[in-house]
């Protein structure tokens, strides 16, 4: 590990990756809101992040996509909840931009070190 990619940046990258994956699943759930028989799917965000924290930060292991339990299914077998999905949509977006800001500040500090402390960008 070189100083350029610190453990923090690695973890943040994983965080961004997981957020993007989650976004893709949420989008897919929303797209299939009227598809008969479609079941809501998601990843265990915190579980996957925990795995990354416990050393497996390479990002090579695939997160497990699972069907979300405990949602009320409509008569056509579809169990996508508009409320759940729109709430998650904004949540993931905020998580993503938080991690993005942290990465930016990481790089800013690195830049400062390169420039001998004479300033950020």
């Amino acid at each position, binding site marked *: 590990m070189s100083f350029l990619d610190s453990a923090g940046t690695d973890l943040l990258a994983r965080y961004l990756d997981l957020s993007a994956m989650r976004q893709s699943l949420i989008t897919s759930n929303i*797209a299939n*809101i*009227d598809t008969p028989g479609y079941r809501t799917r998601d990843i265990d965000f915190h579980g996957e992040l925990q795995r990354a924290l416990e050393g497996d930060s390479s990002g090579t292991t695939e997160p497990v996509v699972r069907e979300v339990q405990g949602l009320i299914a409509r008569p056509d077998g579809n169990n996508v909840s508009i409320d759940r999905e729109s709430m998650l949509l904004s949540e993931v977006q905020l998580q993503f931009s938080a991690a993005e800001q942290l990465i930016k500040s990481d790089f800013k500090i690195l830049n400062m070190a390169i420039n001998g402390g004479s300033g950020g960008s």
Partner: protein
Amino acid sequence: MNLFRVLDISGSALLAERQRAEVVASNLANAESTHTADGGPYKRMHVVFGAHPMQTHGFAMTLASFTDMNAEGVRVDRVVQDGAPPIRRFEPGHPDADADGYVSYPAINPVEEVVNLMGAARAYQLNASAVQSTRNMIQASIDIIKS
């Protein structure tokens, strides 16, 4: 993970919901059509949605770094005709009246169609906000490069 593909998923839903709205509009427009090209009154149509894994192509393909999360888009699988029998009204003077003076009208309930149309419009809006949210995430990623 490739965020550009996520836009494709929402895009597929926008297309499917628009097609649904088109079919509903056609049902509404033809609520009183007593004859069609293949004879008989207009038959009410339904769209059947199906989930399909998204095809990665072109620009998105070159950016695809992660394996597919088998996230699925949606598309209109079939457009089926409603099997409900036509509504018969006694209108002896009507050119499409049968021997007994009854005219067959399509079994279309305008209220039901309008509700369906609202459903399509709401689903379209929701997918449009998903596009907006994904767009913001892509923009945020681009900002990392800028910093």
